[in-house]
């Protein structure tokens, strides 16, 4: 790891100030992706501004069906929240499938969606739930937020505060993990709510998380696993690598969609 200067931010304002005062500073949350990336010397921020201890960014609030999750809430906290599970079990299940227990004790929802790894789980949940990402500057809808592989609508230095959504009538996440890394080779999150059906896919697309509109349309007409059969998932839009080619991933999208439906 290259040298860096570590700062612990006491508040969001403090973090913002520390970040803008640094050369090439970067925020660090749980660091479960950033630290390995720095160790591999694929990232070398001059400064690390640790926001993981800011109390205002932690916790899960459920009010009726409105859910707000603080950006620094860990995967273990989301997976273990009985309150969240009672209104939105799909997202709690998703968080429990990330990494392993030790990683889930440290990794955070804000860190995950700020990184927007194309094979990470949270982007599918956040997009599938039509969540709103609140930052220190504005609110961004999930549809506008995820812009492609490792790319988001966040501006330089913008800090995610929370993720909010209305818990849908029903939702579920089905994941086919890479047998070695446990990242999603394909993960499908389906939500059925007042505004219709949303299907968000992670791991499979060649430009990060995306909404499978053909599946959404088919499922709005017939909300059943059988409806998935008639849908064609375009392999040209899928990722192809040593772990699975595009045709394989295109098929996985349908298989995972069926599994998610079966779990709803």
């Amino acid at each position, binding site marked *: 790891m290259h040298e860096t200067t570590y700062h*612990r931010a006491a508040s969001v304002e403090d973090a913002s100030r520390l970040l803008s005062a640094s050369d090439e500073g970067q925020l660090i949350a749980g660091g*479960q992706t950033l*630290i390995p990336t720095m160790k591999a010397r694929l990232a070398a921020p001059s400064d690390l501004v640790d926001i993981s201890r800011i109390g205002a960014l932690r916790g899960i609030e459920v009010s009726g069906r409105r859910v707000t999750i603080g950006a620094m809430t860990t995967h273990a906290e989301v997976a*273990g929240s009985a309150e969240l599970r009672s209104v939105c079990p799909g997202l709690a299940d998703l968080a429990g499938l990330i990494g*392993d227990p030790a990683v889930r004790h440290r990794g955070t929802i804000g860190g995950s969606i700020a990184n927007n790894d194309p094979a990470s789980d949270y982007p599918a949940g956040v997009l599938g739930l039509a969540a709103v990402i609140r930052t220190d500057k504005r609110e961004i809808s999930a549809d506008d937020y995820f812009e492609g592989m490792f790319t988001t609508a966040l501006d330089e230095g913008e800090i995610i505060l929370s993720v909010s959504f209305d818990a849908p009538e029903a939702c579920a996440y089905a994941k086919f993990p890479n047998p070695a890394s446990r990242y999603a080779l394909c993960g499908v999150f389906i939500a059925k709510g007042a505004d219709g059906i949303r299907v968000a896919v992670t791991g499979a697309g060649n430009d990060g998380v995306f909404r499978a509109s053909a599946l959404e349309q088919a499922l709005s007409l017939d909300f059943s696993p059988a409806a998935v059969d008639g849908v064609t998932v375009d392999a040209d839009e899928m990722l192809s690598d040593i772990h699975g080619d595009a045709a394989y991933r295109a098929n996985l999208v349908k298989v995972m969609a069926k599994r998610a439906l079966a779990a709803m």
Partner: protein
Amino acid sequence: MADITLTVNGQRVSTTVEDRALLVEFLRDALGLTGTHVGCDTSQCGACVVHVDGKAMKSCTMLAAAADGCEVTTIEGVAKGDALHPMQKAFNDNHGLQCGFCTPGMIMSGIDMVARYRADGRTLDEAAIREELEGNICRCTGYHNIVKSIQQAAGEM
């Protein structure tokens, strides 16, 4: 350099570390607590698992500076004097180790999962143990006895 004060195995430690120092480097190199191992150094294998504020974490994927103010427990801190922790005893009883390299991490993860399942009132059966060991790799592939060890300790902790 970062000034840190933390508690390691019940002892208060105040020191200065390089900002980029990993928690595992601090434990092994500065404190000489070499029971915590570095296996893969890429967050996969779990040989470096310690407890930070009572929760299992991978000490190769956390900065020492981030542990400022925390309570850290390593494998050296789980026995009471000469009396092994029930999890250590169970690994001994069930031959839960072969080369032993992964064992410190297995034991720290084992203690963590038993405590969590108990707190949540969930049953830690064999399937759950195997699932919970997702982040701990035994290259001797001796999982069978590791699982048996954790099952025994779950009844004795």
